[in-house]
């Protein structure tokens, strides 16, 4: 699953640490999500979208390999 957290974070002038603090996860988790190494739960995805003032499906997008 790809995402545009990095872009939205930059738009909101927010660092990885600030976003992590707001959604109550470790900074490493935000890094892993941004690089596509970890897919967050629905709850965390909605929390991130909420903090970045977007809808979850605007930030996260399914890829072809997710259907395999």
């Amino acid at each position: 699953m790809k995402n545009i957290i990095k872009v939205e974070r930059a738009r909101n002038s927010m660092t990885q640490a600030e976003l992590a603090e707001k959604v109550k996860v470790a900074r490493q988790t935000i890094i892993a999500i941004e690089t596509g190494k970890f897919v967050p739960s629905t709850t965390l995805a909605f929390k991130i979208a909420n903090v970045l003032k977007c809808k979850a499906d605007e930030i996260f997008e399914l890829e072809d390999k997710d259907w395999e």
Partner: protein
Amino acid sequence: MKTTTFPYAYWTKLLGLLIIIAGITSFFLQYQKKGVFDLNELALGFSWGFIFIFFSKEKTDDEMIHGLKFKALTRAVVVAFFITHLYNYLFLNWRFNREHDLILSISAYQFLALTLIIATAIFYYLKHQATLNGKE
């Protein structure tokens, strides 16, 4: 919703480390006193120590940490079981000349210690891999 998967607080990692140090010290003291390498006693210290290290919360405990710990533990059980089985197969089944008369099977403490050491190593490796090339 707050989930508390791991029972011990972050500071118990230090307690685990102290137990391991006590286990190693006791192991060498026993050797000095009796001249015997009691690997079971060493494994006892390691298993209790790593119970506290591996099953304690991280600084920030979240779903990725839970996932990585689960992944690390599942891999470690398989690897440790393979090593145990291989050891038993090589040293208990084969009838080659041995230096000592008696070779003991891997004990439960040794298996647990081995599993938790591998699990801890895999967990920190996976955590490192997850954050590679993504830092600002």
